[in-house]
């Protein structure tokens, strides 16, 4: 069975399948044409299973499930939803399922979902039915951690990360709200934002209220996390509690603002980012209209520009947080999808790029399924 790049777009789901040598890519789809597809994720514990977070302009959010690698789909019988409130409580409703994470390897059938507004949900039956995680959603601090002060796309709960050594050890991110950690399977949570700038807050070293755009845990060294924030690129090596702003080593004229960050699964020192313009009114475009990926091979001490094959000028695109991924090949393949509907790929770890799909709708996510 061929590997698949799942493409979630503002107007449906697409699949991009490379040949064995990754020289040609066959596009198929759309599936669910007209649906807003935020995330499509295959289950590493059972690659036949794929989950898709969907909604439409008119209808409420839902999750579709496939058990045949995306050939056919069935809607969750109980999609993620907050519990019904009682009088006097804030009545929240899921507007979009934004994020999907397969559970720990030892917990077959378990999934987590993050929503807009910020909510955390768990399924124990492969995504057919979902329950709110009360330890987060009903946490007495949740109204302060996630007050609804969201992004242009709404308040987003994303980057649900599970420690491969311990199914109970979780991290998550909220845009806008910060990074939070649980050591007890989500029953309790604590902020983990030390060292992270939040230049839109009045307090220089706030405990929460930050804007992580994406958090990544290294699979082979789970104590190492990177994150791309609204205010820079950071790394932490637990049990440290303060993040280091490794984006300070980026070229000053480029800066360290962006949405995605992806890691080399075999090298904890290597990460790629896609910088965007975060100056003035936040255009959120490729800087100067010249798209480029930047890579570090030394855990953020230095960065190198990778733009061979990318447009040289007048390309005012950007890459959303879920729209960049690596494959399992060697040399490592890297892919990103753009806001103007192009998918770019590299089969040599970003050293050279080529467009492998174009004319798609605005791309929200690009994920790899082996």
């Amino acid at each position, binding site marked *: 069975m061929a590997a698949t790049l799942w493409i979630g777009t503002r107007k449906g789901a697409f699949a991009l399948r490379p040949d064995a040598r990754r020289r040609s890519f066959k596009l198929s789809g759309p599936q669910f044409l007209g649906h807003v597809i935020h995330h499509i994720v295959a289950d590493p514990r059972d690659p036949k299973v794929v989950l898709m977070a969907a909604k439409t*302009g008119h*209808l*409420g959010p839902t999750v579709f499930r496939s058990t045949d690698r995306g050939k056919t789909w069935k809607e969750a019988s109980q999609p993620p939803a907050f519990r019904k*409130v009682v009088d006097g409580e804030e009545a929240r*409703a899921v507007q979009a399922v934004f994020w999907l994470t397969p559970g720990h390897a030892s917990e077959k059938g378990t999934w987590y979902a993050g929503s807009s507004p910020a909510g955390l949900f768990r399924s124990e039956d492969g995504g057919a039915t979902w329950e709110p995680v009360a330890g987060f959603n009903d946490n007495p601090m949740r109204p302060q951690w996630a007050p609804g002060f969201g992004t242009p796309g709404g308040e987003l709960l994303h980057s649900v990360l599970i420690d491969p050594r311990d199914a109970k050890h979780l991290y998550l991110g909220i845009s806008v709200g910060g990074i939070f950690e649980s050591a007890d399977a989500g029953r309790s949570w604590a902020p983990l934002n030390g060292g992270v700038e939040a230049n839109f807050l009045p307090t220089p070293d706030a405990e929460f209220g930050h804007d992580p755009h994406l958090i990544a845990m290294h699979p082979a060294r789970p104590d190492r996390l990177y994150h791309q924030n609204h205010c820079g690129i950071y790394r932490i090596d637990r049990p440290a509690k303060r993040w280091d702003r490794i984006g300070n080593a980026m070229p000053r004229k480029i800066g360290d603002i962006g949405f995605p960050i992806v890691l080399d699964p075999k090298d904890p020192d290597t990460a790629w980012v896609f910088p965007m313009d975060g100056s003035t009114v936040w255009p959120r475009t490729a800087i100067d209209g010249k798209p480029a990926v930047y890579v570090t091979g030394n855990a953020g001490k230095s960065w190198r520009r990778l733009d061979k094959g990318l447009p040289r000028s007048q390309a005012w695109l950007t890459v959303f947080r879920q729209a960049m991924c690596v494959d399992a090949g060697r040399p490592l393949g890297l892919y990103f999808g753009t806001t103007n509907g192009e998918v770019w790929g590299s089969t040599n770890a970003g050293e050279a790029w080529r467009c492998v799909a174009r004319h798609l709708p605005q791309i929200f996510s690009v994920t790899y399924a082996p």
Partner: protein
Amino acid sequence: MPCTVRIAGPLRSYTNGAASTQANGATVAEILADLDRRFPGMRFRMIDEQDRVRQHIRLFVNTKAATLGEQVRPGDEVHVICALTGG
């Protein structure tokens, strides 16, 4: 005697493409509950978990805009409308 429910286009994936169907109930809420029994998942796409009609959905009984509590009589027509939105 059931009433007739007119189904908006975005919801017809639940009704196998049917633009209308029959449903039983004394209120709009009961009509939607009956629909959900026959077409599982349909109600949540229209009504959120706090029992509020979603932002871009409108409900009518015959020609009158209706809430979930609106009474429905046998032979009435209930219209589920998706308001114009998006782009």
